[in-house]
């Protein structure tokens, strides 16, 4: 009898059914990654406490400093209501898990995630879902302070969730810049420095006074700054009611910034995956 050995390249079998790996589905994967990112938040409070402290601090200080001055100029101008969207954006802009992602890259844990069968997109989106959740939670103390100070929504109760969603959407699109830098550089210091983007966005605009009070170069720059339209949209919900053109412009601003930041972010992800 002759024995011949034949090499066959075929899927290998093995492993019990219960422990057999299988694709769990995109939504499941996003929620698993988001769950991990959210569990890390209480262990990483230094990442979320400063923004909320800064937001509450400036909300109170700005009102105390500028209320008399601004409310004295125009009749019926409510500076507290005017300042609340600024405080919200101060609180949620730049809050992201990009710093944690870059540590994952450094610790090799990002590779571990890439070795699992989940979609690469789910890894990024899971972090972003966590960011949006954190941003929503961060808006609550600022809103509460606003209500305590007497701010009321002209758009009514429904305006509040719309206001929160717009702030969260802004958080999401701005966070994508941080993820782009994290994935591009793999360097925590570079991610930290992305905070610098925060300044032109949030201060070369109508953070402290209405657009008609801006003059010269600052007015020109504010006209190009998407945050100007976002603030006007948010303020319209508080001060004016349902002003669809303001809300539309705010939405366009979010979409424009989001298109740029997400393109950079997913481009950086693709580049990182290519380079291995």
């Amino acid at each position, binding site marked *: 009898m002759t024995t011949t*050995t034949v090499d*066959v390249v075929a899927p290998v079998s*093995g492993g019990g059914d219960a422990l057999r*790996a299988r694709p769990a589905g995109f939504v*499941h994967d996003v929620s*698993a990654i988001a769950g991990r990112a959210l569990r890390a938040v209480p262990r990483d409070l230094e990442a979320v406490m400063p923004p909320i402290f800064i937001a509450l601090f400036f909300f109170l200080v700005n009102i105390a400093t500028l209320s008399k001055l601004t409310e004295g100029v125009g009749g019926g101008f409510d500076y507290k209501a005017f300042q609340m969207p600024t405080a919200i954006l101060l609180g949620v802009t730049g809050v992201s898990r990009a710093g944690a992602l870059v540590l*994952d890259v450094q610790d090799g844990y990002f590779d571990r995630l890439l070795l699992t*069968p*989940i979609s690469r997109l789910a890894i990024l989106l899971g972090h972003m879902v966590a960011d949006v959740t954190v941003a929503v939670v961060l808006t609550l103390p600022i809103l509460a302070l606003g209500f305590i100070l007497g701010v009321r929504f002209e758009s009514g109760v429904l305006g509040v969730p719309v206001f929160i969603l717009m702030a969260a959407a802004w958080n999401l699109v701005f966070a994508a810049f941080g993820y782009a830098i994290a994935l591009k550089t793999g360097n925590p210091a570079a991610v930290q420095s992305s905070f610098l983007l925060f300044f032109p966005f949030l201060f070369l605009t109508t953070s402290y006074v209405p657009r008609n009070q801006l003059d010269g170069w600052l007015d020109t720059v504010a006209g190009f700054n998407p945050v100007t339209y976002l603030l006007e949209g948010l303020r319209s919900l508080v001060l004016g009611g349902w002003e669809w053109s303001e809300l539309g412009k705010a939405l366009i601003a979010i979409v424009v910034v989001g298109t740029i930041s997400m393109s950079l972010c997913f481009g950086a992800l693709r580049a990182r995956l*290519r380079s291995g």
Partner: protein
Amino acid sequence: MCTTATTTAISTDGLVRQFNGLTAVDHVDLNIPEGQIYGFLGPNGAGKTTTVRMLCTLLAPTEGQALVAGFDVATQPGDVRLRIGVALQEAALDPKQTGRELLRLQGLLYGLPKSEMPRRVEELGKLIDLEDALDRPIGTYSGGMKRRLDLVAALVHNPQILFLDEPTTGLDPASRARVWEEVRRLNQELGMTIFLTTQYLEEADTLADRVGIINQGKIVAEGTPDDLKRAVGADVIVARVDGDAAPLCPILQKVPGVQTVEAHGRELIIATDNGSSAISPVAVALAQCEVAVRDLTLRTPTLDDVFLDLTGSHIEVDATEDEEDER
């Protein structure tokens, strides 16, 4: 006529990876049957990790094809990932998660039922003697504990093929022995195919059914450890002399029983069929040459001799990768 089908777990054909024009892996061909422990041995920078990263779908090949568990790493990466477990060179862990959280998440990402996870996590914790530490943040673990956790994280989904990239680098001898024991158990009890890269000769020699030796991106030899060593000779006499050893080669070559002689700086590697009978004539020949002999040793060949024979240099283990104490 009886036909036995051996299933190939890993096969590559002309696998190449270049980085900015530099070739890290140069036309590597592998054919590893299911159920084998394959040792991929080479010095630092030889291309071991790059090869593993391609086989694990982390890195796209520049040229060539690789099939893992029957699926193409470039075109069917998702199918490959479902069937492999990987422990990379550096333990890939999140220091802020607890061991339990990490293993649980790992299971969820592989689609294991939530109901199975508590039992599986306990089982894995027991396997690596970390039951008591599972609820502690991983950042508080010692190097050995991290390595063991990293290894079981690769096993959560009971993979068919396990890639271990230098799994014992930096471990103390006791932890190293435990990893070896576990690797053997996985292979023998579960029939898991194991692709193990290492720069430790003893590790490849002890664990691997077959060894591939890689140097400068190319496979320079492949076979069972015994076959590879046998190719060098039954015994090896190593002589260290003062001065250049090269001029002594032709003289020693004429000594009865000597098969081959190679000089590497001040060292002579003399392969012989019978070391105990050849060592005296070799010593006499060296004395006649009036060379100061620092030491003369007789031993059986090691994989380092194979590497030396093939490449002209020793496999040097990175001095910075000294053993790490268990805390």
